């Protein structure tokens, strides 16, 4: 009986749950260092492959896209290090939860669905950063002559990374929500993978894309995920330029998060929970 007595006090007390979600997600993703290490090795090996390819390319066309050879190699390794945190290959656990019907549990919680998963994803990105981000960068530094930022450059890069993670989440959240409508999400995942690999600059820096294709590619949201933070890392943006990079990233993050909210509301209206 005594349980129900002091409930008025409860609503006003305590901090928001989101930091806790992020903290536990961080712990969860830092909990399997061996698996992360295997992925880091793969990311590093591909860093070398890409570095040798761009060295050959920049040997034939020095100064291509305004990058020096050291810039281009640094681009390869910093973007390899970003694969994990930005999760450029796509995917969000929410997709499986929608497919299995587990999402019913998430929808019952007294929190915002998108906010919950954003907090979870920020924790994941932080947990992945050290385990999957540091090895490729360290190996690149050891083997090649790279362009590196100074302390202010690192700080500027950290901010751009945070915005990249949020924008990447907003995109993956949208893709995950389509599982409410499409009973097989593989097609959607494949399309989003191609788009994000190509238009983020992961395959080739967007600075070498010629003409209109380059103009368009640099305006799409995927540019905010890899190309822009990498340019900040290489010190190619300073002062007003840096702020315009942040504004571009924040713009796409806001637009995509808003789209995610609208789609969440639509999903709620015509929701079918799978598996009874």
């Amino acid at each position, binding site marked *: *009986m005594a*349980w*129900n007595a*002091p*409930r008025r*006090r*409860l*609503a*006003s*007390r*305590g*901090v*928001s*749950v989101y930091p*806790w*979600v992020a903290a*536990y997600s961080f*712990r*969860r993703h830092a*909990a399997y260092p061996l698996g992360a290490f295997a992925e880091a090795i793969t990311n590093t090996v591909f860093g070398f492959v890409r570095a040798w390819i761009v060295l050959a390319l920049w040997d034939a066309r020095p100064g291509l896209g305004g990058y020096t050879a050291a810039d281009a190699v640094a681009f390869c390794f910093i973007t390899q290090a970003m694969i994990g945190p930005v999760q450029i290959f796509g995917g969000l656990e929410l997709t499986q939860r929608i497919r299995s*019907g*587990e999402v*019913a*549990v998430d*929808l*019952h*919680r*007294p*929190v915002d669905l998108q906010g919950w998963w954003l907090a979870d994803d920020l924790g994941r990105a932080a947990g992945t950063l050290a385990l999957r981000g540091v090895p490729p960068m360290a190996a690149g530094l050891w083997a090649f002559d790279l362009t590196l930022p100074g302390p202010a450059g690192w700080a500027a890069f950290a901010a751009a990374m945070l915005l990249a993670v949020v924008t990447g989440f907003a995109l993956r959240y949208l893709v995950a929500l389509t599982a409410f409508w499409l009973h097989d999400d593989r097609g959607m995942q494949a399309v989003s993978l191609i788009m994000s690999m190509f238009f983020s600059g992961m395959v080739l820096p967007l600075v070498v894309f010629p003409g209109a294709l380059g103009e368009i590619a640099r305006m799409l949201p995927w540019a905010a995920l890899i190309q822009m933070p990498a340019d900040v890392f290489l010190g190619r943006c300073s002062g007003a330029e840096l702020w315009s990079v942040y504004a571009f990233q924040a713009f796409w993050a806001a637009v995509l998060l808003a789209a995610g909210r609208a789609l969440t509301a639509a999903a*709620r*209206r015509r*929701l*079918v*929970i799978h*598996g*009874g």
Partner: protein
Amino acid sequence: MIEVRDVRKTFTVRSGRLRRRRTMVRAVDGVSFTVREGEFVGYLGSNGAGKSTTIKMLTGILTPTSGSVRVAGLDPARRRTALARRIGVVFGQRTTLWWDLPLRDSLTLIRHLYRVDPVEHRRRLEELTELLDLGPFLGTPVRQLSLGQRMRGDLAAALLHAPPLLVLDEPTIGLDVVSKATVRGFLERLNAEHGTTILLTTHDLGDIERLCRRVMIIDRGRLAYDGDLERLRTSVAADRMLVVDLARPAPPVQLDGIGVERVDGPRQWLRVPRGMNAAAVVAALARRYEIADIALREPDIEEVVTRLYRTSGAFGAE
């Protein structure tokens, strides 16, 4: 505590590869009921009858196509978040716990989720730990818990914010006899001692018989029965069974109005229609046969429900 008025929920199902056909499925088709504070109500139905859909509308996960729902004074679909703070929900086939975290950490996260005062939290956790015997596995990651342990953990998770209403969607599914008994005993105490209103969805009739005075039965999206468990037995007019051991094996006995259900050596199962005096049947039997032993069995709930489903035309299901 719960007010449901003429609620309907229809889903559109698409089928066919080239020519997409769209069919409307009425999962819940005009259901009304009221659950008062402190009641312990069983909500019964076969697979696909509309149980889980009703529960999801009560918790605000699904929006009804038409009709009105009020739970703890709120409209669930509009005030989902506020409602979630006032009710506890357990989905038997799913878990609210975090797979990779120890049970204790999941419960801490739930404290933050529902913004429970730390002192209150500690007190309730202690009580729930004792009642549900969580102590031995509080530090174990959820993925390593047995189904019975996980269910007890889920019950604790649903009750840490002391909701006045607990909604259970098949909480004993897949549990062994001992775990079932623990869960049932706990629910009984929760209802009796804390006055928590409980709506229990199940197709385990043992749960209903042990726990619920009132039962609602849904069939093909409509309420086929709502009332006393005892009245259900009589209103469905399920027959009683007279099990007779004759002194020696005999052909099926011949008595007016009595059907023989089964014969196994000297033992015979006689169906005694409701309304017929069992004593008179026994007397008539004793005059004509030598009887070694005799037992009269009341229809059990399974039989009652089976019969109800078979005759649910009479309850207006179609």
